[in-house]
């Protein structure tokens, strides 16, 4: 930092010192035609020019001044110079004479004016030189500093040789000058930086370069050796005078070439602008991918980008949700107009099988009269993910303007990105939702597990086996055993309609109800009737419950049960199967007396080795890959074949038969199986 500053200060000091030295030289030796002094003056003025160049360059670099602003600055500087020359020719026509005269008050004052005059021109030359150098080195595809360096060398040579040999032979200097001009012409060709200006900027540049060319030409005109201006500068340094003219020539040629280059660029300027806009939009597309977290923000961006990419006045997009189109986001259009255009576009056959962007003119259609604003051309693009149509992006132009083919292409490319971004957003939302549901199901599964008995009762009269296989989504199956009463074994098996956490809650409630009822009542029919009454207060009609309640009197081998809409009870006696399906409505369907009127209780006197089987519909409705049910007949057949086996073995055979049948297809419902075998005579 400090080094930078001292560096800058060094150049500033050099500038001031050179000026003072020149001032002193002119004061004391002005008018003496000494070659030594002339050369000294040239060297000092070159040092002055160099330090000014460095100062100006660092200023431009530091403030990052745009090229267009630089051309403005050059134009204004030239303007100032012209005024300075104009006033100098009016005010001090004998200035150079006074400068060359003996030391006097007049010559001293003139010298002050002269040195300021010199400074102005030095600054101008240095500035113009720096700007031209910046332009030369900007955006060159092939970096080639040699030609510019050569130009500097030949320019200086031409100036110095003029001072040295002008009285002997001017041709040496002229030769260098010619080479310099050739180099100037070479360096002025191949201007590429204007291509990146906008149309408006190009118009401005056209005007400024014209102005600079004219001003620089005028300045060259005023610089011919006879003018006071030329004489004043020559007094201080002939070399500098020559160089300043050379810089002006460079300016005329460069800005002349620039003028024509811009002129030729103008017809394509608009197309170029649009392309540039497209390119910058393409860059923005990639940012779409990062906005999938917030759907609203994404929608906003898509609408805005649509407008930019197609250069439209208004834009919006619609998504299909269960075959009805919904406008997600819109820009610069009233809801009413939007609805009209949507109705027109989406319901007319035109957009049914759209695979690419399409331009629809509404200039002649009837809906134009119904719109509050003058929309003329509409660009519609399908949003597709893979082959599925997700929606449409629509852009509209007002006041007679139509869309062009290249905008159609741009929108096509954009819609691909937009579809992907939208799809990603949807997938993300879905997976979040899925995770939430899975968490919920975890809770439901945990509840269900805790509601079921942990172990089966150990009774000498009855062998008990229970199998419960939960479905992924928790199907609502439940069962329970009651052994509190002496000489009595009771159980319940049931199924709550519905799935997941709501089914698990109903299960919890039903379990509580049966647990309390079994303590105060003894008849299965009564218990089911009472349970139905209690559930009437809380149960939603959708969540009815099927249940089968049974009771075995351990002393007299009497089995009683009632069925409330549940699967039949199965008795296997001497390898023969009896299925019992007494009348009975599921719990929670009907709360009138008709429930108990339609509920039958069945009584069976058990014999030794009688097997009782109870199940839920998860068994008979277990499905294979082609959606066929395991079914009652397969179930009963399996029981029949294995009925002589031990209860645990029998259960195992049934379950394995089911799993062979379903062959790994998804289990949609819980599977519950209770098997009891009467051991007493």
């Amino acid at each position, binding site marked *: 930092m400090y080094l930078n500053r001292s560096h800058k200060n060094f150049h500033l000091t050099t500038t001031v010192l050179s000026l003072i030295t020149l001032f002193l030289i002119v004061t004391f030796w002005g008018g003496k035609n000494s070659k030594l002094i002339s050369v000294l003056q040239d060297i000092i003025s070159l040092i002055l020019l160099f330090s000014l160049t460095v100062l100006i360059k660092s200023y431009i670099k530091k403030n990052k001044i745009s090229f267009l602003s630089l051309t403005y600055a050059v134009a204004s500087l030239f303007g100032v110079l012209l005024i300075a020359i104009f006033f100098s020719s009016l005010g001090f026509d004998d200035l150079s004479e006074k400068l060359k005269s003996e030391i006097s008050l007049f010559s001293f004052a003139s010298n002050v004016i002269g040195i300021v005059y010199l400074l102005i021109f030095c600054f101008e030359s240095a500035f113009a030189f720096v700007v031209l150098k910046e332009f030369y080195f900007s955006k060159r595809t092939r970096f080639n500093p040699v030609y510019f360096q050569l130009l500097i060398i030949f320019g200086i040579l031409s100036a110095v040789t003029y001072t040295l040999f002008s009285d002997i032979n001017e041709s040496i200097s002229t030769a260098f000058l010619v080479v310099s001009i050739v180099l100037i012409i070479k360096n002025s060709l191949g201007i590429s930086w204007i291509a990146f200006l906008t149309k408006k900027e190009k118009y401005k540049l056209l005007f400024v370069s014209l102005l600079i060319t004219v001003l620089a030409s005028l300045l060259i005109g005023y610089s011919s050796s006879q003018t006071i201006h030329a004489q004043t500068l020559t007094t201080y340094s002939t070399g500098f005078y020559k160089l300043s003219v050379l810089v002006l020539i460079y300016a005329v040629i460069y800005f002349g070439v620039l003028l024509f280059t811009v002129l030729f660029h103008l017809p394509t300027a608009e197309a170029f602008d649009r392309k540039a806009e497209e390119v910058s939009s393409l860059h923005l597309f990639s940012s779409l991918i990062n906005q999938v977290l917030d759907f609203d923000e994404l929608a906003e961006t898509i609408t805005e980008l649509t407008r930019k990419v197609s250069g439209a006045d208004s834009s919006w997009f619609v998504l299909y949700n269960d075959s009805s189109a919904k406008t997600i986001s819109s820009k610069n259009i009233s809801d009413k107009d939007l609805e009209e255009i949507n109705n027109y576009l989406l319901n007319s056959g035109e957009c049914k099988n759209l695979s690419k962007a399409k331009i629809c003119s509404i200039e002649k259609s009837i809906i134009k009269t119904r719109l509050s604003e003058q929309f003329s051309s509409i660009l519609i693009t399908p949003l597709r993910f893979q082959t599925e149509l997700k929606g449409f992006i629509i852009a509209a132009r007002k006041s007679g303007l139509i869309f062009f083919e290249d905008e159609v292409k741009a929108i096509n490319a954009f819609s691909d990105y937009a579809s992907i971004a939208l799809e990603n957003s949807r997938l993300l939302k879905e997976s979040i939702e899925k995770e939430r549901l899975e968490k919920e199901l975890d809770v439901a599964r945990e509840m269900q597990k805790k509601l079921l008995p942990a172990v089966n009762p150990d009774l000498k009269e009855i062998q008990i086996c229970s199998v419960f296989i939960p479905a992924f*989504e928790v199907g*609502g199956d439940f069962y329970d055993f009651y052994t509190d009463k002496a000489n009595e074994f009771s159980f319940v098996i049931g*199924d709550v*309609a*519905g*799935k997941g956490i709501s089914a698990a809650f109903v299960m919890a409630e039903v379990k509580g109800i049966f647990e309390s009822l079994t303590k105060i009542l003894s008849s299965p029919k009564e218990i089911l009737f009472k349970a139905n009454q209690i559930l009437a207060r809380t149960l*939603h*009609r*959708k*969540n*009815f419950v*099927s249940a089968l309640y049974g009771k075995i009197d351990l002393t007299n081998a009497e089995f009683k049960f009632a069925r*409330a*809409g*549940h*699967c*039949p009870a199965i008795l296997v006696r001497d390898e023969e199967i009896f299925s019992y*399906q007494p*009348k*009975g*409505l*599921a719990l929670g*369907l*009907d709360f009138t007396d*008709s429930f108990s009127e*339609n509920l039958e209780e069945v009584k069976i006197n058990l014999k030794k080795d009688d097997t009782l089987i109870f199940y839920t*519909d998860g068994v008979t*409705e277990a499905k294979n890959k082609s*959606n066929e*049910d395991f079914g009652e007949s397969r179930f009963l057949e399996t029981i029949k074949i294995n009925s002589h086996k031990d209860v645990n073995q029998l259960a195992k055979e049934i379950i394995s038969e089911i799993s062979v049948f379903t062959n790994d297809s*998804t289990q*949609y*419902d819980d599977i519950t199986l209770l098997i009891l075998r009467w051991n007493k005579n």
Partner: protein
Amino acid sequence: MADFSTILKEQGDISVIKLKGYLDAHTAPVLENKFDELIKSSKYKIVVDFADLAYISSAGLGVFMAYIEKVRENQGDIKLASMSDKVYNIFDLLGFPLLYEIYKSEEEAIKKFSE
């Protein structure tokens, strides 16, 4: 599981909902929406045609329970028709024939409304 869809058909003041596919906990909302629509437009005479229904789960049955009260309060009814034996067995197991009129054919169910 497989798909489920409904077709709605109007016959005078009677609405016929034809079910197709698999009606379970996942597809039940489709049918619920249909019933909501009918009740919103005060159409309470409803016949449900089961001819093309392959399967119904307990959650599917729950849909009918959810609307029957409201429909009957408004002097209407939900009558069921053309059930396959398999579907009928599921209804029968739960005791639904006690609560709903079930007919062999759609025409029969429609005729019952005009009696």
